């Protein structure tokens, strides 16, 4: 775990680019909050590490592609495929959040804060 206290609008150093390869994650403490920073196939994502359900450590959970279904015709099984969105699944009860939007599937009231991640001169920063 890395990072330091910061006020909103600040930039928090996460670490060198080399410290967060594809498929890796780290959890950064920002003030009294924790934020998970993920490298998802080269794209950086950051989301609050507190599940809205019972405050579980969301960002310790699995990162998976969403599954979509398509109705083909009556009497046939729907076709299931991976969708474009990647989700993180809370290890406590399985609630899943879109890593890009922070949205819990199909409930607009339930959305976690997500944050921008930038890379400058080989260093990853979290914008809070």
């Amino acid at each position, binding site marked *: 775990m890395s990072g330091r206290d910061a006020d909103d609008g600040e930039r928090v150093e996460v670490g060198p680019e080399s410290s967060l390869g594809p498929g890796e994650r780290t959890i950064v403490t920002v003030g009294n909050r924790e934020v998970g920073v993920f490298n998802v196939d080269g794209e950086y994502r950051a989301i609050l590490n507190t599940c809205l359900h019972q405050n579980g450590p969301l960002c310790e959970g699995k990162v998976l592609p969403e599954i979509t279904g398509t109705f083909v015709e009556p*009497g046939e099984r729907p076709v299931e495929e991976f969708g474009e969105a990647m989700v993180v699944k809370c290890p406590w009860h399985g609630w899943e959040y879109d890593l890009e939007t922070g949205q819990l599937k199909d409930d607009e009231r339930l959305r976690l804060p997500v944050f921008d991640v930038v890379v400058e001169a080989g260093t990853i920063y979290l914008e809070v």
Partner: protein
Amino acid sequence: MARGIKVDESIDCTVVDVDAHYTGSFEDLVEYIDDGPWKGRFEAGAEISKTASNKGFWPSITSAHDAYRTPGGFEMPETREGMCKVMNDLGIDKIVFLGEQMITFDQMKGDDERPIVYANAYADYLLDRMIDPDNGIYGTIPIAPNDPERSAELIERVGDEEGFIGICFITSMVEPPLGNRRYDPIYEAAENHDLTVVFHGGTPGVDSFYLSGYEYRLETHTLGFMWANTSQIVSIVAQGVPEKFPDLDFVFQESGIFWIPMMMYRMDMEYFQRPNEGPLMTKKPSEYMKEFYYGTQPLETPPSKQYLNYVIEMIGGPDRLLYASDYPHTDYDTTNAITSIPGLSKGDKAKILGGNAEEVFGI
């Protein structure tokens, strides 16, 4: 005939009863069955049903356990004229009824043809003898869920007949449950003919449904209809039936209304924990349930009637509810069940008593 039920004179809106039962016997149906073995079987069935069965004393289900102390219920006419008189006595302008006998579909064992033979004969019987849109008498097409193809054929055959405004499933002991894709031909036919889908709770005896050993009807009648509908609603939502057939309206009947928020919030919680199941779903379960319609009977009588308002609010408001009597059964609800709910405007009560049903069923 209506045992002194008094029409509520304060009601000045159209009253639609979306769930009354016609108690016709097998005997009435025989002439609607083509000559052949099934005609003989139904003739014999009619004879058997006239004789005292030992089931009443040595019951195989708790439904028959204490028949000698049931209040007796009400009579149901067997002619259009008689039906009009009952409706007039009860202050009902339009009535939607389904056949009493089909409630026992779930108890039919052995051959798999009996229900669809019955359904065809019953549909023809209704058209010939009872349905009368000019006088506000409508019916639903009985569905034999064990035979989706021939049920779809029945819908194709009579679905455009004036007066049939929906199809009806009895929801108890239907396996697999009604969200399964094997029933798609039925939903597809209903959608093609602009028919509303009614899911009606089934036999009060849950004796052989989920677990056996109950002793009293008090137990099984508390559970039966509600259990049947909860069993089906989860399947219909999770399997995406409303997504597959977006033009269909769905009505659940004869379980009261308190079960609805319970299922909404239970299933939402499950969905949040298993969001990759239900791949056709595009919204959480409660949102689907807030688009379904619900017959009100038997409307619960909580110690504070205000609790009814909370439930109505939770399920999406008065637009979701359709007054249902269940006449002539002994848990019949008069219109007073609706007019006595506090906190509803006159307009909301008018919707529940009739306006919503006119819209849902297009009557």
